[in-house]
């Protein structure tokens, strides 16, 4: 397994490179401010991913997840 540090280092470098390309070459036709905001997608991706994981896990633990035998209460057997 690849270590977390290594992956983070590589992805940070790739993102840095992408931001460099964005700053130097990209001239977006913007409808909204975030289309011009440099590195917006990288920030949005990182924060969005973190939010999805944390919120879903919280939500799941509180409301959604049940033990594996939850459905076995007779509704599958009487068919």
């Amino acid at each position, binding site marked *: *397994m690849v270590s*977390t540090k290594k*992956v*983070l280092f590589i*992805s*940070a470098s*790739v*993102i840095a490179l*992408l*931001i460099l*390309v*964005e700053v130097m*070459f*990209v*001239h*977006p036709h913007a*409808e*909204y401010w*975030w*289309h011009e905001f440099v*590195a*917006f*997608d*990288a*920030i*949005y*991706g*990182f924060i*969005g*991913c*973190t939010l*999805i*994981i944390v*919120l*879903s*896990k919280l*939500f*799941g633990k509180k*409301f*959604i*997840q*049940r*033990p*594996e035998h*939850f*459905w076995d*209460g*007779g*509704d*599958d*057997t009487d*068919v």
Partner: protein
Amino acid sequence: MFEFHPGFILIISAIAAMVLPRRARQAVMIAGPLLAILAVFQLEIGTTLTYSFINNMELILMKVDKLSWVFALIFSIMSLLGCIYSLHIKNRGEAAAALAYAGSSLGVVFAGDWMTLIVFWELMAITSVFLIWYRANPQSRGAGLRYFLVHTLGGNILLAGIFLQVSGGQFEVGVLTGNNDVAFWLILVGVAINAAIPPLHAWLTDAYPEGTVTGSVFLSSFTTKVAVYTLIRIFPGTELLVWAGVIMALYGVVYAVLENDIRRLLAYHIISQVGYMVAAVGIGTELALNGAVAHAFSHILYKSLLFMGAGAVIYSTGRRKLSELGGFFKKMPLTVILYTVGAFSISGVPLFNGFISKSMIISAAGYNNMPSVELLLLLASVGTFLHTGLKLPYFMFFGPDKGIKPVSIPKNMHVAMGGGAFLCILFGVAPILLYAKLPFNATYVPYTLDHVISTLQLLVATLAAFWIFIPKLGGEPTVSVDTDWFYRKPLVNLTVGLVTAVCSIRDYGGLAGNKLLERVVPYFRNPFLIITGKTPLGPETGRIAIYDENKYRFPIGFTIFLIILVMVVTFSYIYI
């Protein structure tokens, strides 16, 4: 030049597959879909095929326009890929059900009038349920029954709407947007059930993971996309659908975080992906509708590829849960590579087909002054890459070694996956091949530097966040309750409770009646007992026959005989 309904070719192949021996059946399973693809290419825009039905009704069995043509193309291609994938199966019924299911999907796509549409719509439900039942275990039997009940309910709601529509003089399938009458809502709900729009979606994630390995590949491709086609045809620009779609896109993502079953995780991402298409139908601009068509086209290819990959894992390991899988990527390298193509496609990585269609919808939202829709759909694509592109392959193939020794999978499965992967890359590299076939007037350029750079930023950042959270993301041995809870728990309890209540009233009533009879009968036999006042010597047991309803029941065959008789008489009255 021959012009033949491609759906009928598949349905005829299904009948042939039902009766032919194995070798011949395999030939039909290849030849049928190939002929169907050929037939689609032979069809010209504007072709119609009608059939005179009772009451001077003219059924429009086939009406070809640009929209139905492109859907017909992808459905017939998919039926070929699916048939190749299931070439090794020994169950003739399953092969026939799959072919008939694909054929009836084409029937819906080409249907020009409401009656034809509903007939094929119901046929889809009937044929597809066998792809679940043929797994033949208690879970699949239960899930299949629930699937069937939900779809018959949906079909009946649709039928009610169609009756209103037809009796109002609207015989042909057409745009209903803005009508806002009862027929509009009934048809919308009927179609929404098949499109799996929450809260009407639970049948999908309940049933698809319980289907057979090969059957679920078919299931993942047809029902929801036929519903998307119907939405494009009937409800373009219905604003409600924008938000329904956005909710769908995120709903699937949230549940996918929690899911442990590999095919159920993929099923939640069907909901998420169909969300993009539904939102696009709601936006309703020409670019958005083209986006919906293109995304359905791409989605069928990559999602079936992913289901094929997951099916290959289940076939070769016998396991289906992330918490039980992992560490065997070296033993199935080809499957891992082909799965990854599907995963990159669904995630919208440039050069794969998801990129050229998903970006179209997101851009359409932006152009149409819907910034929040654009951002939320972008967030959903973060979730898509997170689960299908990272979490699922990581914990399924890589991750901690569970000492799994997979058996090798049949060659035809690899061939089908290879075909799907090839098409995913082909359309990703050369989007014009797809764009040229899109029905609406809108041009789009997916490969701008701006676009590619921002997509890559989004994806790499997601990868970084994923790697930080890996310890938290492993499969947990839990199940997730969804809206199917309502009909799997309270509704079952309610039904059982009501039946028990009615039965006990009947039983106690019968018992009390019998006791009363036993007391009264002696007085009838000897009325003088009333005058003499002598109490009869206890109830005379054995004299009164206890009522046994089974003695008086008709055999069920008699009822069926009557039904057939009535049908024969009716039909001979109509036709003779």
